């Protein structure tokens, strides 16, 4: 390392370099040449993972605005896992769909850079920059199949609403700066703790604006409108990537801002977030029941999962903070694997993402159906899977903070969600196949990714202790 001041940005730097390498390869390749460009990305991500592991417990900081504390590093590791799995699934998908490899991987890696930055940022402005970096890349990824009108529409909607929410967020930063004289989270926190601002209505305005900005990014009700369209229009693997990566990064920043800097005002925001959490869980599951497109259904399901994460935020105790981290890890792996299966089942002409396309899948693809079933059961929170432990952790946080109402809403909505996850299972196992489905050959890399993801789901579901301990270590340093 050049100087300790750079330590905290090494993970991010590693991913950025990989992105630049991909871009350079794309620029200088011979026309028609195919290279292992995804491999470059994986190398960069492994570099990020290794450096995050080295920095663990180091509590480093760079330039005062990026902090390599365990909380950020935990989310970084989750993001690295998301990135690696995405790239492995993509190896099959982008060839099939004719997506330009260099461009695609570069965008994935740049958005990962933004995500890691967002998870480790310690300054509102840096969070904003990170948000923009990741968002711009994801907008483009959403519309990367340019010939598909649905994708273009989705990208455009996502872009407009995303820009809108960024503006809210920026206003929130401006108000916060005006009130406290800083954009640094630690300084804001100590200022707010020291000064009595509770009679100043502007602090509530700042709080509200920041809340709206975050709520957009995690697609919490009532700021979720863009999610189903964007998720349905984007290529399945990109949907998987953004429904996990963006959510993890945004939640990390959300938790950092609201549970450290704005902790003194938790009495003001907790009731609001309570209502948002309840509404998000209820709307996500209830509307999810009515969907016939699998991607759209999982879009609503991921809205609902955002609601469960918000429960941890409302609980705001030690258990809740650690639960958010664990839940992010469990959800990210599960959801990405589910979208991975959807992506693998598509063909170039047809995405095969309608529910009825899954009729009798078990007869033609028993392995993929079984893996998909595990993912769906984990999303539904059934033991012995990661999703169960995640939900259990979140709800025990709610109960131990006295939010029995929220816990009851949470468990009941997860029963409703099981209903629509089971609809997919019913389709796969209990319906006869309609037309002869195309035989899909899954390549070795994608199969490895799926196997690893499923193994992780069971590992987190059966032996969660290790990761639970890591999660509770991670929150000790900052909150």
């Amino acid at each position, binding site marked *: 390392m050049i100087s300790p001041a750079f330590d905290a940005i090494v993970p991010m730097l590693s991913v950025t370099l990989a992105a630049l390498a991909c871009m350079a390869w794309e620029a200088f390749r011979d026309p028609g040449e195919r290279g292992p460009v995804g491999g470059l990305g994986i190398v960069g991500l492994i570099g990020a993972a290794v450096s995050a592991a080295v920095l663990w417990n180091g509590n480093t900081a760079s330039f005062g605005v990026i902090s390599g504390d365990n909380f950020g590093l935990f989310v970084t590791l989750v993001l690295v896992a998301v990135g690696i799995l995405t790239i492995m699934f993509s190896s099959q998908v982008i060839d099939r769909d004719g997506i330009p490899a260099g461009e695609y991987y570069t965008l994935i890696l740049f958005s990962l850079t933004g995500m890691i930055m967002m998870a480790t940022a310690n300054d509102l402005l840096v969070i904003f920059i990170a948000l923009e970096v990741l968002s711009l890349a994801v907008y483009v990824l959403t519309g990367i199949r340019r010939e598909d009108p649905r994708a273009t529409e989705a990208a455009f909607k996502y872009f407009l609403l995303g820009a809108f929410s960024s503006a809210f967020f920026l206003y929130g930063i401006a108000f916060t700066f005006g009130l406290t004289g800083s954009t640094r989270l630690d300084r804001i926190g100590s200022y707010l703790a020291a000064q009595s601002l509770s009679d100043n209505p502007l602090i509530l305005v700042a709080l509200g604006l920041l809340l709206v900005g975050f709520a957009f990014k995690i697609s919490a009700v009532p700021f979720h409108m863009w999610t189903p369209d964007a998720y349905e229009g984007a290529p399945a693997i990109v949907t998987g990537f953004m429904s996990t990566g963006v959510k993890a990064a945004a939640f990390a920043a959300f938790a950092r801002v609201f549970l450290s800097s704005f902790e003194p005002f938790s009495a003001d925001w907790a009731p609001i977030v309570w209502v948002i959490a309840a509404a998000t869980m209820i709307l996500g599951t209830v509307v999810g029941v009515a969907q016939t497109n699998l991607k759209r259904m999982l879009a609503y399901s991921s809205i609902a999962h955002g609601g469960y994460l918000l429960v941890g935020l409302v609980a705001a105790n030690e258990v809740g903070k650690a639960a958010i981290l664990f839940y992010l890890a469990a959800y990210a792996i599960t959801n990405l694997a589910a979208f991975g299966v959807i992506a693998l089942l598509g063909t170039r002409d047809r995405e095969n993402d309608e529910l009825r396309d899954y009729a009798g899948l078990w007869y033609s693809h028993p392995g993929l159906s079984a893996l998909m079933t595990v993912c769906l059961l984990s999303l539904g929170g059934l*033991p012995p899977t990661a999703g169960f432990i995640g939900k259990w952790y979140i709800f025990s946080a709610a109960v131990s903070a006295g939010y029995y109402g929220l816990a009851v809403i949470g468990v009941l909505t997860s029963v409703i969600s099981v209903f629509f996850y089971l609809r997919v299972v019913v389709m796969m196992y209990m319906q006869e196949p309609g037309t002869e489905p195309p035989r899909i050959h899954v390549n070795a890399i994608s199969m490895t990714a799926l196997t690893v993801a499923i193994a992780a789901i069971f590992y987190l579901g059966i032996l969660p*202790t290790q990761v639970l301990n890591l999660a509770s270590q991670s929150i000790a340093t900052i909150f």
Partner: protein
Amino acid sequence: MPLLSISWLLPTVGALLVLLIGNADGRRTSLIRWVTLIISVAAFVVTLAIWASFDPASPEFQLVERHLWIPAFGIDYYIGVDGISLLLIVLTGFLTPVAVLSSWIGIERKVKEFCVFLLLLEAAMIGVFLSLDLFLFYVFWDAMLVPMYFLIGIWGYDQRIYAAIKFMLYTMAGSVLMLVAILGLAYLHNAATGMYSFDLLKLYTLDIAPATQFWFFLAFAVAFAIKVPLFPFHTWLPDAHVQAPTAGSVILAGVLLKMGTYGFVRFAFPLFPLAAHYFAPWIAVLAVVGIIYGALVAMVQPDMKKLVAYSSVSHLGFVVLGICAMNVNGVQGAMYQMLAHGVSTGGLFLIVGMLSDRRHTRLISEFGGLKAVVPRLTAAFMIITLASIGLPGLNGFIGEFLILLGAFRWDPRYVVGAGLGVILSAVYMLWMFQRVYYGKVTHPENSRLPDLLPHEWSSVVPLCVVALLMGVFPTVFLKPTEPAVTRIVDRLQNTQTLRVERLERAERLERIAERSERLERPERSERR
């Protein structure tokens, strides 16, 4: 040897083993069937070994195994048996091979997956009965839903998808509220001692405020009431039973329903004794309503499987009534009735399944005069029917008798209704028997039905033998349960007396306070 772990790990590992047998295009199905049978019989032998090494004189949990699992939350892999769970585990071990045999010919499609799910189901069921840690219990409780869901949904009859989803959602809706209550318990333990714990024995000793007990008891009770199923939570049962394949019905009636009543005895009542005393009369009323309602509805069913399903509602009502009586006779009778119902109703579903396999219909009106065609099957059905009615000398009698005795000691009014149920059960069962087996052969296609086949012999005979054994030597099965039941009943009664004492003491204090106030007041007025 960690017998208890082996008893649930053996079917799990066995399931994975079966999964590894390649059977593309349905090859090697008979190998798969045999391997599954051997595994399930081996698991049964393990459960018998547990019984053999069990000390029937002790009320304590035995063969206990404990390993740290999630230490931060005080969650352990903590299993053990006492008299209450012991025989239910043996029953599970006994019925699984029967279920395997019952599907020997009936299941032709996707045999491998069927066997895998059946073995996983067995593992989860045994796990439920073994768990002494509430978290572990909940894991098994929920994990069990998945294989059952697939068994009904894939291999069931016409309405199978509806039935499978209904089964899953009803059961889950009840159990998630229990999850919240479990978390609440762990939290209360943390508040009291500074440590989270899901250890059942530690939670037993927790002193919980009456209002909290009230809500937590409700959460647990709804989960178990749906599972039992107690009237009016029973509507999933006829669908699930009728649509499930024979093996599914046997397991469902034989073991799954017992989890509800087991939950009442093990968790809901002893964890929240005050609430239990408060709610017991109400639950008992529901139980009696269920006994009569189930019997009346069973009487008018045209479908044999549905008839047996409703008879389960009625019989399980007895079990719940016995538990609510909260005395040794009642609870012991309930335990006995659980076993007896498992054997006899399992047997009924098995034989109905045989008829249905032969004729592809279960309508009573499609049969008639079978006695002349299939005399051996008729004899077996007769024994099981009589056992189910509660004829003395067979297994059903002992349990019902003890339950009625216990209920009578508690409050004779319940016995009036329940007694009516005993009579009605004779009516609907014998009436069905008469219509199916006696008279002339009304449908020509019935005249050439084959009698018991070898694999059917091997599943029916053990059931009949056990039904007879349980009727003739009830002590063998009652004795191990006695110490544990006595302990739980003592606990329930003690808290009741403690509670009464405490209330009396509080009243006395109030009275004293009032008196002293009254004494003070005149002084004040004098001063004024």
